[in-house]
């Protein structure tokens, strides 16, 4: 929920004005209501007692007169006419008597005293039978005075009947209830109370309003009446004739009647109502005053805020020159205005600085832009050149790849050719050798010495030729054999090879030291061939060394394992190293050391095909060391 300042100020004024007056008002109303109720209850109780006393007093006189009449009649032997005259005299002498009847033992009216205006009714009354009147029967039976409310046979109106026994006869008197109403009226008129008397059956028998008595209103259902009848002084609210009343009910013990003193609740509570009225008027006046003051205050408060808002708007619009100090009697507003002015001054100063820095930055940016352009030009130039170079390299590379491919193909064809030639040449050569041997063995005599010599040379050359062809076949077979990589244990291979070469070591002093050789992934047959050739060479070239020593070992490094075979044999001249791994290349005289000259070529071919490398170090007469490396796990090989 959003509030603007004006609304907040208005609500504040309203709350400040309303809450105290409502709070005080409610408390005041409760207190006053409590006091008024207590005061009212006290007053009504006092009045009820007072009226009750007056009624008792009032009734004493007619009762006394009535008793006096009884005693008088008992004491004097009056004739019927005299008795009638006496009754008439009494009824007309005392206002409160309505009628007086003298009844005989059977309850028949023998004499009647009536008001002057009703004297004519004597004839009707005399001889009437009142034997059914209950109080007469009770009075006759008990001999005491009895009374009860009833209806007048003369008027039909409610009346109070008194009856007393008189030597077997009875005197019945109708007492005017309207006089009780007068008493009540006189007693209560100054207090605006409504008082009425109710008989024990709940019927209203005396009331300032005679019509209510005549209407014989019955309030037996009211709680207040029942409580009073039970002897308890009761004050409470009740409904009568459609109005809510508050009243006190009191039992008049001598008569068995209940006196009710009541007042309309609205009238009884009129002080409370007046207070509520005053409070309401005060509330309205306070609201109006609060609104008026709130409006003025709001305007006073809003003006500097409006100006401040305009100042803020100018700051937003960067119209700093138009920012002026806001004049106000309020210290806080002045401080706020000064703060805004200071802020604007600071903003202006900072903006100047910023402008200068911006200009510098712009100049720098321009230089940078130029440099950048130059740089981009150079980069473009170099890129173009690089692209050209790259194209050339690519072309070279492609050419190289094509050549390599051609070479490999040529090599493969050459190897295939060598194999085919070697294989095919072998049979005729063997035939030539065999035929030369046959000549020597079977036709030596015919050949002569020279012919035999030549034949022997043929046999020897054929033998040498076959050996060379055999070596060539071996080389070709190795070169053409496809590589089948498995996990190889070099130690085991070395041991097997050394076992096979044991015959060459017979009668020699040769120390062979085999260090730990790590396993590797290689074609086991080809690698065995490598070890056989290298170890065979080492044994062969140390033949002439007195204390021959051959060391076999390995060095693990990075992604490859380097194996070596080192001997202290004849060695070779490193100047001829380039021929070392060529086919049919021999660095020693066949006289010194036999061999086909393809052993190391085979080794080099095998190592190369495994993706490895082979090299050697040597000094003539001091031995040689051959090293070859194999990748630990060449890509694409199974573990």
């Amino acid at each position, binding site marked *: 929920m959003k509030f603007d300042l004006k609304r907040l100020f*208005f609500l504040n004024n309203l709350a400040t004005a309303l809450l105290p007056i409502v709070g005080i008002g409610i408390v005041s109303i409760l207190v006053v209501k409590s006091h008024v109720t207590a005061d009212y209850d006290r007053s009504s109780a006092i009045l009820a007692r007072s009226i009750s006393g007056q009624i008792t007093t009032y009734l004493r006189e007619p009762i006394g007169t009535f008793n006096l009449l009884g005693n008088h009649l008992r004491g004097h032997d009056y004739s019927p006419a005299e008795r009638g005259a006496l009754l008439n005299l009494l009824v007309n002498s005392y206002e409160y008597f309505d009628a007086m009847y003298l009844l005989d033992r059977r309850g028949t009216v023998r004499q009647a005293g009536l008001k002057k205006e009703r004297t004519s009714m004597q004839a009707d009354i005399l001889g009437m039978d009142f034997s059914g009147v209950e109080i007469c029967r009770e009075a006759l039976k008990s001999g005491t005075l009895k009374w009860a409310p009833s209806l007048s046979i003369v008027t039909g109106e409610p009346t109070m009947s008194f009856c007393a026994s008189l030597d077997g006869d009875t005197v019945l008197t109708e007492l005017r209830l309207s006089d009780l109403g007068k008493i009540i009226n006189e007693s209560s008129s100054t207090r605006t109370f409504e008082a009425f008397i109710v008989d024990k059956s709940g019927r209203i028998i005396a009331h300032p309003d005679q019509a209510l008595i005549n209407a014989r209103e019955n309030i037996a259902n009211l709680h207040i009446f029942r409580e009073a009848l039970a002897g308890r002084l009761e004050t409470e609210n009740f409904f009568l004739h459609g109005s809510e009343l508050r009243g006190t009910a009191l039992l008049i013990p001598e008569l068995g009647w209940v006196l009710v003193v009541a007042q309309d609740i*609205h009238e009884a509570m009129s002080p409370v109502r007046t207070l509520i009225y005053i409070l309401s008027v005060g509330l309205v006046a306070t609201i109006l005053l609060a609104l008026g003051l709130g409006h003025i205050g709001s305007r006073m408060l809003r003006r500097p805020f409006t100006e401040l808002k305009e100042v803020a708007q100018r700051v937003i619009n960067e119209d700093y020159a138009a920012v002026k100090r806001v004049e106000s009697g309020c210290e806080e507003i002045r401080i706020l205005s000064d703060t805004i002015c200071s802020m604007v001054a600071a903003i202006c100063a900072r903006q100047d600085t910023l402008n200068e820095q911006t200009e510098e930055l712009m100049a720098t940016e321009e230089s940078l832009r130029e440099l950048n352009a130059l740089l981009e030009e150079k980069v473009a130039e170099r890129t173009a050149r690089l692209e050209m170079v790259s194209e050339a390299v690519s072309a070279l590379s492609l050419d190289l790849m094509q050549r390599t491919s051609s070479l490999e193909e040529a090599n493969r064809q050459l190897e295939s050719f060598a194999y085919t030639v070697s294989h095919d040449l072998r049979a005729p050569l063997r035939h030539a050798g065999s035929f030369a041997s046959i000549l020597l063995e079977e036709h030596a005599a015919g050949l002569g010495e020279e012919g035999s010599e030549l034949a022997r040379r043929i046999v020897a050359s054929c033998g040498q030729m076959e050996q060379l062809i055999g070596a060539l076949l071996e080389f070709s077979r190795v070169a053409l054999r496809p590589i089948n990589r498995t996990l190889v244990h070099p130690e085991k291979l070395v041991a097997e090879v050394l076992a096979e070469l044991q015959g060459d070591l017979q009668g020699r002093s040769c120390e062979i030291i085999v260090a730990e050789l790590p396993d590797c992934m290689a074609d086991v047959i080809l690698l065995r061939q490598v070890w056989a050739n290298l170890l065979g060479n080492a044994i062969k070239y140390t033949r002439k060394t007195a204390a021959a020593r051959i060391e076999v070992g390995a060095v693990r490094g990075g992604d490859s394992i380097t194996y070596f075979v080192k001997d202290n044999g004849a060695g070779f001249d490193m100047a001829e190293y380039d021929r070392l791994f060529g086919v049919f290349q021999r660095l020693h005289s066949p006289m010194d050391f036999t061999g086909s000259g393809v052993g190391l070529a085979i080794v080099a071919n095998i190592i190369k095909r495994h993706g490895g490398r082979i090299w050697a170090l040597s000094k003539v007469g001091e031995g040689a060391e051959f090293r070859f490396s194999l990748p630990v796990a060449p890509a694409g090989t199974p573990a």
Partner: protein
Amino acid sequence: MTKSALIMILASICLALGSSCSCDRDKAIKIGFIAGLTGKNSDLGVAGRDGVQLAVESINASGGIGGRMLSLVIRDDGSNPDAAALAVESLAKERVAAVVGPMGSSMAKAALPVAAKNGLVLVSPTSSSNELSGRDDNFFRVMEPNRLFAHHLAETCVKLKIMRVAAIYDLQNSTYTAEMFADFREEFLRRGGRITAEVSYDSARSPLFIPLVKKLGVDRADGVMVLANSVDAINIGQQVRKLSPRIPIISGACGIAQRDLVQQAGRSIDNIIFTLPVNGRSDKESYLLFKEKFAKRFGYEPTFASVLAYDAAQAVVAALRKNPEPSRLRETLRGIGTFPGLQGDILLDSYGDPHRKLFITRYFRGHEDVIE
């Protein structure tokens, strides 16, 4: 001044004014009651009022009509037709839903045009004028017309071998008394009876009764018919007894006395015969319960007027239960058919006239007997 400020001001003023004035909006359904509560015929009116009062209190104790309480607004017509018309006018201003009453035929006749003008329905407990029956109007009642009572009385007289009747009647409320006597005479003569004397008087002039009764020639009659208010009826009865201790006294329903007057009637009440629409000796459970509650509430035994007034109030309540709209009450009552009465269901015809059984009641040696 903003809109919210205006709302706040109005709310505050309403709060202030609301707290200062008593907001006693009466949501009760008002039921009017008119009867002669004062004067010589007041016993009838008071008994009727007490009957209606008890009905209203009982309905309210059982939760009212659809949760709404009933409120009884009482007016005294003093047995005066003009006052009855004014009372209806006053009740219309009070916005009552319906009026129970008036009790007297003359008063009902005078009140009816005013009620019709104001759209009010009158449900009379005891009005029995022939003139008010068989009419499509705003008048309903729970007591049958005089003709029926008169014929019933004539028939009873013949049954009891009372063939010579001397009659006295009050010219006040002549709508009832004169009409009743005329109907009686017609039927009685038709049945072979004879009217030996006919005396009328004006109760408003406070006449002496002994000369009037002497004019009746009691010694020449088998019975005396008294059509008067209860005070006069008792008074006349007393005078008749002075002349003839045993002669039967035939009274209209209005003459029946209340307990106070019964006491003062003494032996004169012996052999008084009434025709009533109520059985005073009924053992119907609802009636017995009513009698008990009534006596407890008002301190006296209910009279036939109390019973009829209670029934009249029940007719209004039954109609309001059927349709709570007061403006439709006339139509609702016309179509109500039967409704529960204290002595059984009461049938209202489309003219608003009841059909119920009549009972002969006789006071004899201090007892009230019901003769079929």
